[in-house]
């Protein structure tokens, strides 16, 4: 139901741009105005969200420690899983962000006869997640060729690597295959694993369909329904140089691709996709476990009412004296 809703929304988005371009000739709207608006929404929205998080302080020092603490000199501490230094934290965060360290720990719990609980390694989610995010990044990077007059050598290298299988013409990009496979897997696990289906919201399916739509339209455009590539580059260059033009005859499939990307950008700051920024701010990961070595200050720490020793002794003085305990006031 929630998956269907998200699917229909994405189909509707495609229909809107199709009708808009084919029927109403709104190329300028979809090729210029919406991209600018979407990018502005993304940048402002992203910054707004991060600043909002940043304005909430981190009152307590709460890293989740996943290894031996630093204590006595002869006990080997776990410098990355339980970092006590900034360098350790950077390494921990790098592993988290670049290779999804925590997700790599994933286990599958099985209850067998007995009862006997067994924990098997389960790396599929990690693998699919990693494949999806990295291929997305590489694909985005490849697209730089549309936004620069001379294509940088690095971009050419990446393109070369990405197509090293040398299949077809134009050459097949491996990342195109990977991203579609990975996103499809991520969708299927949401539907087929009963627990995951139970917790999934429309907001979980929507980005998957949207990204799948972007990837499919891109693939169609590159391999099947050819568009006027020179025109596309002209449009892209016009956008980055703030001198937008709409070249003739690019093809509606391009506008579909572009519009879905714009929707993704505009939707990003309002959605769970903000985990991209959020992961860096997570206080269980980005703090060193040094809270007994370096005092952590809570900016809103305030005095509280306590039961003082004087009040305590007042109440128990006789009993304390009887028991031979020293007292402050006789």
């Amino acid at each position, binding site marked *: 139901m929630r998956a269907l809703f998200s699917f229909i929304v994405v189909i509707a988005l495609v229909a809107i741009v199709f009708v808009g371009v084919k029927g109403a000739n709104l190329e300028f709207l979809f090729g210029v105005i919406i991209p600018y608006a979407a990018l502005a929404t993304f940048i402002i929205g992203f910054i707004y*969200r991060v600043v909002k*998080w940043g304005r909430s302080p981190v009152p307590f020092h709460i890293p*989740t420690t996943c290894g*031996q603490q630093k204590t006595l000199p002869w006990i080997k501490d776990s410098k990355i899983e339980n970092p006590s230094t900034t360098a350790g934290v950077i390494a921990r965060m790098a592993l988290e962000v670049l290779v999804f360290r925590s997700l790599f720990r994933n286990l599958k719990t099985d209850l067998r006869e007995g009862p006997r609980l067994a924990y098997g390694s389960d790396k599929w989610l990690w693998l699919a997640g990693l494949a999806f995010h990295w291929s997305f990044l590489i694909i985005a990077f490849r697209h730089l060729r549309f936004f620069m007059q001379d294509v940088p050598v690095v971009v050419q290298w990446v393109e070369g690597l990405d197509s090293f299988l040398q299949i077809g013409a134009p050459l097949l990009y491996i990342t195109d295959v990977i991203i579609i496979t990975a996103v499809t897997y991520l969708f299927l696990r949401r539907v087929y694993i009963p627990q995951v289906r139970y917790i999934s919201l429309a907001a979980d399916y929507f980005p998957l369909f949207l990204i799948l739509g972007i990837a499919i339209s891109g693939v169609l455009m590159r391999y099947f329904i050819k568009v006027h590539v020179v025109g596309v580059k002209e449009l892209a260059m016009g956008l980055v140089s703030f001198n937008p033009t709409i070249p003739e005859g690019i093809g509606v499939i391009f506008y579909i691709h572009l519009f879905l990307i714009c929707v993704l950008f505009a939707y990003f700051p309002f959605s769970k996709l903000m985990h991209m920024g959020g992961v860096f701010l997570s206080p269980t990961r980005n703090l060193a476990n040094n809270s007994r070595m370096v005092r952590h200050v*809570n900016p809103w720490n305030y005095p509280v009412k*306590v039961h003082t020793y004087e009040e*305590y002794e007042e109440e128990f003085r006789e009993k304390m004296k009887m028991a031979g305990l020293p007292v402050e006031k006789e």
Partner: protein
Amino acid sequence: MAKGTPKPDELSRIDYTPPQKEWMDTPVKLKPGMYCWGAKAKNLQAVGFPNARDWTPADEDWKLPENWEWTVLEGIYDRLKKYRSFQLFLDICVRCGACADKCHFYIGSGDPKNMPVLRAELLRSVYRRHFTFGGKLLGRIAGARKLTLDVLKEWWYYFFQCTECRRCSVFCPYGIDQAEITMMGRELLNLLGLNIDWIQGPVANCYKKGNHLGLEPHTIMSNIEFMLDDIESITGIRIEPSFNRKGAEILFVTPSGDLFADPGTYTCMGYLMLFHELGLDYTWSTYASEGGNFGFFTTNEMAKRLNAKIYAEAKRLGVKWILGGECGHMWRVVHQYMDTWNGPADFLEEPVSPITGTKFENAKTTKMVHIAEFTADLIRHGKLNLDPSRNDHLKVTFHDSCNTSRGMGIFEEPRYIIKNVCNNFYEMPENTIREKTFCCGSGSGLNAGENMELRMRGGLPRANAVKYVHEKYGVNMLANICAIDRAALSTLMDYWVPGVGVTGVHELVANALVMKGEKKRTTNLRGEPLPGVEEEEEEGKEEKEEQGG
């Protein structure tokens, strides 16, 4: 075992299939055995908590104040501004489900609302409806729902089915920590006087009397006297500890559970014997007589109010530093919160072991040292005369407590100690220890009697791993460094793995400790004959007969 608790084979038939109906359409049903009694008026009043009245969770009417919805929403707003963790963890979850089967309560119950992700969604859904644009606009399709009485009851039921163990946060790709959500959820519930009495009672006790059990000064002393008598009859040595003594070098603080019931009391005897043997210049305090902090399971402010006594007493007595006993959540609080709340402890000195001269650099600002760190250092420097064969009748495994594992990382110290005082040590399977350790099922104030089914369910993964080493290696003793564990695991073992005992690490130390001037020991601290002693006696008899003949 509480009446009505299902038998193990019945309880281990767990159905993980989620219901057909969506979770928002499945209102909470309070199932007896799965929740605790409501906080009593007098215990709420004792610390000035709002809406103090006697109430019963099973009743329709929870006697909530007027405008309670507003109080809760305002409470959420307030905490979003104060805690980045709260704001962030409500915003960035992608519901990948990696946390789902990592929770001991989910594994033991199959209730989908015990998946950490869904337990968080219970609150997140309300946050969306009242605090986000998308949620206000789209409502249900955006996963948003209004705060209603049913929702509130659901929160209460499930935020008291989370032991804040943080296992989920180890597996979460963003480090989202359900403990943070539960803590905020409980804070919100506390605004309406909705705690459980098993927590609120100890909080009230601790505030007025200095410890959860409500032991008055003379009772603390007499409880320790009993232990000293036992120690004397076992070792022939009379120990004379001091209480509230000014000018001692070290203040010793441990959870009051160690003073009260076995097997915790044996651990306490272990501390007493160790300190005596070292000639340590230390004192107990009857005012700061609680290391644990049940306030931590109500509100941050209450936790701070209780914790304040430790530094205050250290200052009053003029000690140099503080030594802390074996306890789980106590050490989460000491390690991650105490200095922030009640520091800086500039009236104390950087801790140095008077026996070995080791500087505890890792505790240089908080100035409180974990006893496992302290003892491991002693053993490393050869300061203790140990006879591990006295523990030869034991096959020991070690349970890493949640808080000291995932909120501190003290893994090697206790293991090093155990391996030096016992000859037979076996690890449980790797996915159930260290940072991946399973909760006893009774942490964060849930070790009551009326919620026994919940405790046995939540403790299943831990017990199951013990059962594995029990069957494979004949493990018969479960060691730990947590007072709640000592109480809770005993019940859990009796239920799931009969034949396995529970011990604190310092009980094992004291049994192996050869003290200066002690008489020949024939029993351990529990009064059970030491291994080899019975045979020796037999042999001795024969010799005498021969001589006589």
